[in-house]
C-alpha cells in the first residue's frame, strides 16, 4: 500500500460525493445529502492522512520537504483545500446545495493529478530556487484562496441555475434562498481575496529573496494580479454600487476562470513559474 493508492480511493470518494450531491439536488430525500457529506468528509480524512504520509515518505527518502512543490502535489493540495473550505462552509450555513458544483472541482483536480501522463508523482528533491522558507506559506495561502474562489464559483452557478430556469423544476424550491447564496458568493470571494492577497505578498517576499525583485511582471505574477483585480472589482461593486445576485454570480464565474488560467494556463506562456514544462 502506498499514499498514491489512498489518493486513488480519495478520488473515488470525491466522485461518489459529487454524484450523491447531484442526487440530493434532484431527489427529495435528505438521505442523499447525508451520504454525500459522509463521502466527502471521509475523503477529506483519508486525503489529509495521505498528504502527511507523503510528507513523511520524503523524509524516509532522505529528501525531507513539504509536499507542495510540483504540479502533482499542488493539484492534490488544491483538491484538499476545496473540500476543506467547502465542508466548513457546509457546516456553517447548514445547507448542502453548493456541494454539487464545488466537490466535482476537487474530484477533477485530484483525478487530473493521477491520470495525466505528463504529471509525475515522484518525490524529487528541491532545486535551489525552491529551497526557501517562503515556499510553504506562499503555496498554502494561494491555494486556500483558490479553494475559496471555487466555493464562490459553485455558489454562483447555483444562483444562476436557480434564477435562469424559466420553467422551474420542483427541485429549485429546495435550493437555498437567493439572499443566502448571494452572501455565500460574497463571503467566499472575500475570504479568497484575502488569502490571494497574502499569497501574492508572500510570493513577492520570496521573489525579493530569490530573484532580487519583488515584482518581475512574470506572466504568473501578472495573471495573479489580474485575478486579484477581478475580485477587487467584484467586491467594490457589491459594496459601493450595491450590485447583488446575478452580477455577483457572473463575477464569481469570471474570477474562477481567471484563477484557473493563473494556475494552469499561464504555464504555457514563457516565464519563471513554468514548472509544468519540466
Amino acid at each position, binding site marked *: 500500500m502506498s499514499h498514491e493508492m489512498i489518493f486513488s480511493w480519495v478520488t473515488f470518494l470525491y466522485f461518489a460525493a459529487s454524484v450523491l450531491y447531484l442526487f440530493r439536488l434532484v431527489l427529495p430525500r435528505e438521505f442523499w445529502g447525508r451520504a454525500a457529506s459522509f463521502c466527502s468528509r471521509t475523503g477529506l480524512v483519508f486525503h489529509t492522512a495521505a498528504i502527511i504520509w507523503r510528507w513523511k515518505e520524503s523524509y524516509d527518502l532522505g529528501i525531507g520537504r513539504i509536499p507542495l512543490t510540483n504540479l502533482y502535489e499542488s493539484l492534490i493540495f488544491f483538491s484538499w483545500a476545496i473540500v476543506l473550505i467547502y465542508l466548513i462552509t457546509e457546516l456553517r450555513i447548514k445547507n448542502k446545495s453548493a456541494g454539487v458544483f464545488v466537490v466535482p472541482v476537487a474530484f477533477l483536480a485530484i483525478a487530473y493529478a493521477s491520470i495525466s501522463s505528463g504529471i509525475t508523482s515522484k518525490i524529487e528533491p528541491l532545486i535551489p530556487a525552491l529551497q526557501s522558507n517562503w515556499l510553504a506559506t506562499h503555496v498554502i495561502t494561494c491555494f486556500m484562496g483558490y479553494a475559496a474562489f471555487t466555493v464562490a464559483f459553485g455558489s454562483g452557478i447555483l444562483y444562476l441555475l436557480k434564477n435562469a430556469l424559466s420553467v422551474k423544476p420542483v427541485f429549485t424550491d429546495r435550493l437555498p434562498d437567493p439572499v443566502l447564496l448571494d452572501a455565500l458568493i460574497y463571503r467566499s470571494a472575500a475570504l479568497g481575496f484575502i488569502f490571494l492577497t497574502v499569497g501574492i505578498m508572500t510570493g*513577492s517576499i520570496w521573489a525579493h529573496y530569490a530573484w532580487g525583485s519583488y515584482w518581475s511582471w512574470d506572466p504568473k505574477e501578472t495573471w495573479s494580479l489580474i485575478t486579484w483585480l477581478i475580485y477587487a472589482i467584484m467586491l467594490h461593486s457589491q459594496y459601493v454600487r450595491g450590485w447583488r445576485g446575478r452580477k455577483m454570480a457572473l463575477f464569481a464565474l469570471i474570477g474562477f476562470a481567471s484563477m484557473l488560467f493563473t494556475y494552469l494556463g499561464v504555464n504555457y506562456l514563457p516565464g519563471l513559474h513554468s514548472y509544468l514544462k519540466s
Partner: protein
Amino acid sequence: MFFLTTTIFDDKFQQTQGENRLPKQAKLLLSFFSSVKLTIVLLVLIVLVFILATFLPQHPDVQELGRKISPAGAEIFLSLRLFDLYHSPLFYILMSLLSLNLITCSVSRFPASLKQFRTSCFPEPPGTFDNIASDHIALLDGEKYAVGKIVESSIRNKCGTFKKTETERGTIFYSERGRFSLFGVYVVHLSILLMIAGAIAGSLFGFEADVNIKEGESVDSVIIAGSKDIRRLDFSVRCDKFTVEFYENGAPKTYRSDLSFIRNNHVEHKGALLVNHPLTFADLRFYQTSYGELPDIKASLTYSIAGRKSAEIFIREGDQFFIPEQKVGVEVLRVEENIMQLGPAVKLKVSAPGKDLQFWIFRHIKEIAAANPGLFSKVPVFNPGLFKPVVFSLEHTEQQYFTGLHIVKDPGVPFVAVSGALMVAGLLIVFFMPHRRIWIRMEHSGTKLVITASGRSSRNQAGWERLITELVQFIREKAT
C-alpha cells in the same frame, strides 16, 4: 464588460461643505475623479492591458519581428511600446489616473466617515425601529426589572459590553463593536498609494545590474540590466570560490559563491551567497543567478628531486614556472580534466639548454603504469620523471567556474514592505471586523412588555440579522 457603457457621472457622491464653495466645473471634475465608476473602468482597462501584455511578447527581437509582420507594423507596435507595456505611456497614464482617483475618492469620502465615527450610538439613527421584522420583536409578560435583567444578560452574552438609557419611549440598550472598521478602507487605499510610491522610488533611484566573475578574480564595475551601460562601484567584489552540487538524479542541489567585498585593498566583508540567500553590502543586494564553466582548469603540481618534495604550484594552461634547483623554466601546455579516459593530466614543456622536452603528467600515473607493464619504455612521454632528476606529480585538478551575480539597489523596498503589511491589516479590518451596532428597545404596550431589536452592520448585514433573531429568540425563551 457590461458596465462600461454606463456613464461615469451619476455616481452617488457625498458632498461635504467645503466642496460647495467650488466652481461648477471644479465640482464636476472632482466628482468625476472621485467616482467609483471611474475606479471600476480604470481597473478593467488595467486588467485588459495586463492580458495584452502576457500574450504579446515583451522585449522581442525587433528585426525578427519586422520579418514576421511588416516592418511598418513593427514600427507602430514599437512606437506604442506594446512590447514593453509595463513601461509604456499607456500604462503610466492608467496608473496615474488610478492614483488620482484613489486620492480624490478617499479624501472626499473621509469627512463623512469621520463624522460617522464620531457619531454616538445614542440617540439611535432615525428610522432604527421602523419596519422591524417579526422575528426581531418579542411580546413578553413580566415585570420590567426582571425582563431588563434578562435583556442585559443576553446582550452581554452575544455582543459584549453595552450601554443603557431610559427615554420616554422606553429603555434603550445599545452595543457597538468595530467602529474603527470605518477606516479600514482608507488603510487599504493608502497602502496601494504607498506601494505605487515605492515602485516609483525604486525605478527612479534604484538599479539592477548583472556581472560575471571568474573564480579568483574581482570586479568593480557592473553592467546595468537591459542596457550596455556600465556602473562603477566604490568597492570590488571577488569570487573566492564557486561551488555547484548535484543530486543523484542530476538536478542541481546547490549553487554557492564565496564572495569577498574589498574596499581600499582591505576585505571588509566575506560571505557565502546562495540562491534564496542574498548578501547585502553597501546598500546593494547580491543574488546568485547563474554560473558557467571556464575553459581553463586549475591544477596543482609538485615535483621532487631525490626524494625532496617541493611546495604546491598552482597552474593553468599557458602558465610558466621556474625550477630553481635546476635553473629551468617549465611551460604548461595543456590542462585536462580527463584525457584518453585516463583521468586528469597536464602537459608540460621543459626548456633546458640543448633539449626541449614535452611530456604528460597524469594524476593517476601509478594505476596507469601498473595496468600497462613497461609503459614508460613504450611511451616515454607518459613518464613524469622524464626530465631527470625531477619527478613531477599532479596533485589535483579543479574545474574553474565563473559566477553570475544579479545586483540590485532598490530604495523602494521598505515602502512596498510597509504597504503590504498595511494592506493585509486593512483588508482584515474591512472584511473580518465589521462595524456592528445593535439597539434593543423595551417599552410597555398595555399589559405586555415589547422588546424590539434592530441592528446595522457594515458587512454581512444578513449574518448580523440572523444573530439578532437568535438574540431575540433567546430573550423570549428566558422570559417565559
